[in-house]
């Protein structure tokens, strides 16, 4: 059986499974549509949260980022997992106790302010839409590489699948498909990683293999990796840039990712689906167990792929001649077709010289004497995970599972985001603002209509991605970190915060973050309109725009605190509300609100 048929069979089987679940898990009420009837077991919810959270970026891009960035990229590992500690300790149990359906609903009720709710809706929709574009383009890429379909057809098939289970099943359908998608994506991620770790280090657990000994040379894997990359003029893999400004930026960037993670609405609403407050606490832990399986593996995948790549190009060691272009392995030929891997024979010797030609000392001391005229290989870091099974010469069925895994990661996150958007539109905008008297049936219909519209918008943006798509991830995290997380946390922990303080805090945190990102990335991401370069030295405050969410959150906290203390206390019923969400007792009653 050829690779194409194999890919088609495995991907087709997973899609049939998702559709089957969709038909089984139809939603009959708004409670089922928004919160799966609050009957999801905490372990099941944890698994669904894992699939919800781990996007095309986690699955496809992260290991590649680590492979080429080394120690400095640890921010992603700590940031995207550390946020769950904040979620478990500071938000999830209390929001579950509150017992409503959306994040803006909590903000609107706690700060007794439709304005606050509206600001939250705007943040939620902006953050979720920017995030969903990346998922839809990821679906298109995976289809075109593995099923040889053109981008548009692939995207439309993906959209149709999401439509089927998200519109029919709402949160209930999404939850159970996400469980299936988690199983597919984690299998796809770990199988190649385990094989490669066994080949290189003899350890079956990649996270242990990363710190084990390289079988071929007998010295630690990371020692050998540092050796070969520095021998090619690249930065030392494990070294830390110890300059104070760089250390501070790493701390702030990690912190931004953590509070951004804890403030992303599509993750928070997953904790509304469990039966009890105690379950929300356990469920956050289970979510992190399932996420950690991938996140503990990713740094090993990155480091081992980098080493394998160097060894492929320099089979006799970096001091010897690299391989001839004519005898390159098949996987390189395959990826050259996609344009994500490029070779240009600059010195005309028919061999692939790959080194850091931006390093002028190395260029003068090593490259020029060896007759090298520039690095001849360009590798897009996004191919690392997808090409990994081919680089390690694993059988064809592994590659087929990786294709299905990439699609599962993108589809599950897209569905979660679309659900957050549609419930916010139907519940916060239509029921909350435009038509409060709407019947349950009418609201359910609107929830389905807004879901269908959201899928349409996301598909359109996936087909015609705005040029700034890649930049917008910083925006999504910045907004969640600077506006949503502080508002939720203060709503629970600081009783004195009133409506004026909350709105002033959210708006100032939001504006500060938005303006800072625009001043460094260009206004509305239009290239060339930025006032400052987006580097540590050149930036306005010495902080890169990706790390500014931390400062935005601080602005939000400080403004909310001082404005609240300068104005009147919140009314007694709001103070009672805060008291009631602080204790688990009575959560069952709070959940029955219609």
């Amino acid at each position, binding site marked *: 059986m050829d690779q194409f048929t194999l890919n088609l069979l495995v991907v087709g089987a997973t899609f049939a499974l998702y559709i089957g679940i969709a038909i089984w898990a139809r939603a009959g009420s708004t409670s089922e549509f928004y919160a799966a009837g609050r009957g999801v077991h905490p372990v099941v919810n944890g698994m669904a949260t894992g699939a919800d959270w781990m996007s095309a970026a986690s699955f496809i891009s992260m290991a590649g980022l680590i492979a080429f960035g080394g*120690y400095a990229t640890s921010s992603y590992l700590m940031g995207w*997992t550390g946020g769950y*500690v904040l979620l478990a*300790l500071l938000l999830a149990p209390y929001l579950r106790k509150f017992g409503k359906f959306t994040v803006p609903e909590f903000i609107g009720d706690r700060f007794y302010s439709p304005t606050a709710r509206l600001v939250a809706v705007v943040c939620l929709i902006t953050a979720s839409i920017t995030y969903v574009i990346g998922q839809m383009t990821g679906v298109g890429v995976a289809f075109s590489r593995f099923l040889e379909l053109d981008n548009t057809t692939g995207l439309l098939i993906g959209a149709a699948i999401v439509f089927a289970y998200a519109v029919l099943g709402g949160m209930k359908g999404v939850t159970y498909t996400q469980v299936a998608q988690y199983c597919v994506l984690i299998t796809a991620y770990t199988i190649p990683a385990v094989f490669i770790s066994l080949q290189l280090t003899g350890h079956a657990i990649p996270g242990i293999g*990363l710190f084990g000994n390289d079988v071929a040379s007998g010295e630690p894997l*990371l020692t050998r990796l540092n050796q070969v990359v520095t021998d090619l003029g690249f930065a030392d893999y494990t070294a830390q840039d110890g300059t104070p400004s760089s250390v501070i930026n*790493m701390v702030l960037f990690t912190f931004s990712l953590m509070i951004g993670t804890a403030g992303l609405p599509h993750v928070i609403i997953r904790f509304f689906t469990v039966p009890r407050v105690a379950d929300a606490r356990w469920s956050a832990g289970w979510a992190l167990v399932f996420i950690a399986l991938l996140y*503990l593996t990713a740094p090993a995948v990155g480091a081992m792929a980098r080493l394998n790549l160097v060894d492929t190009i320099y089979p006799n060691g970096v001091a010897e001649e690299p391989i001839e272009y004519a005898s390159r392995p098949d996987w390189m030929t395959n990826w050259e077709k996609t344009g994500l891997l490029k070779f240009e024979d600059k010195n005309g010797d028919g061999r692939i010289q790959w080194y850091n030609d931006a390093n002028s000392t190395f260029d003068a001391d090593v490259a020029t004497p060896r007759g090298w005229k520039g690095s001849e290989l360009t590798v897009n870091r996004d191919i690392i995970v997808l090409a990994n099974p081919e680089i390690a010469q694993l059988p064809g069925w592994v590659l087929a599972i990786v294709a299905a895994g990439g699609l599962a990661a993108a589809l599950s996150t897209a569905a979660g985001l679309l659900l957050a958007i549609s419930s916010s539109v139907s519940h916060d905008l239509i029921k909350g603002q435009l038509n409060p008297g709407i019947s349950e049936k009418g609201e359910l219909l609107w929830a389905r209509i807004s879901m269908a519209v959201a899928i349409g918008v996301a598909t359109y943006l996936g087909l015609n991605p705005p040029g700034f798509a890649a930049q917008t991830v910083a925006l999504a995290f910045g907004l969640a970190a600077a506006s949503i997380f502080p508002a939720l946390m203060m709503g629970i922990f600081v009783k004195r915060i009133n409506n004026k303080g909350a709105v002033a805090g959210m708006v100032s945190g939001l504006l500060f973050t938005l303006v800072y990102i625009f001043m460094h990335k260009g206004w509305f991401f239009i290239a060339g309109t930025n006032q400052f370069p987006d580097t540590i030295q050149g930036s306005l405050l010495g902080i890169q725009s990706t790390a500014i969410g931390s400062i935005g959150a601080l602005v939000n906290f400080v403004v909310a605190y001082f404005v609240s203390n300068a104005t009147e206390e919140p009314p007694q019923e709001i103070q009672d509300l805060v008291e009631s969400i602080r204790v688990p007792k009575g959560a069952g009653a709070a959940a029955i609100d219609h």
Partner: protein
Amino acid sequence: MADNSSNNAYWQANLNIIKVCLAIWALVSFGFGILLRPLLKGIPVGGTDLGFWFAQQGSILVFLAIIFFYAWRVNKLDAEHGVEE
């Protein structure tokens, strides 16, 4: 910046547990993983040092332990104060 207006023993006990958990959370990630890494240079782990291990593996493992400890401890606290569901 938590306020003390909720002066009951349950909430205070909960806040104390949260403070300890977050102190450990910050120590392993921002501390061992980034700021204190130079101090851990002398402890070798598989070709690099303990700080690198914390940044790429250890912090995640400790995060897991913190969340499960918190869930266990506070669920017990609920029962002690009779505020469980």
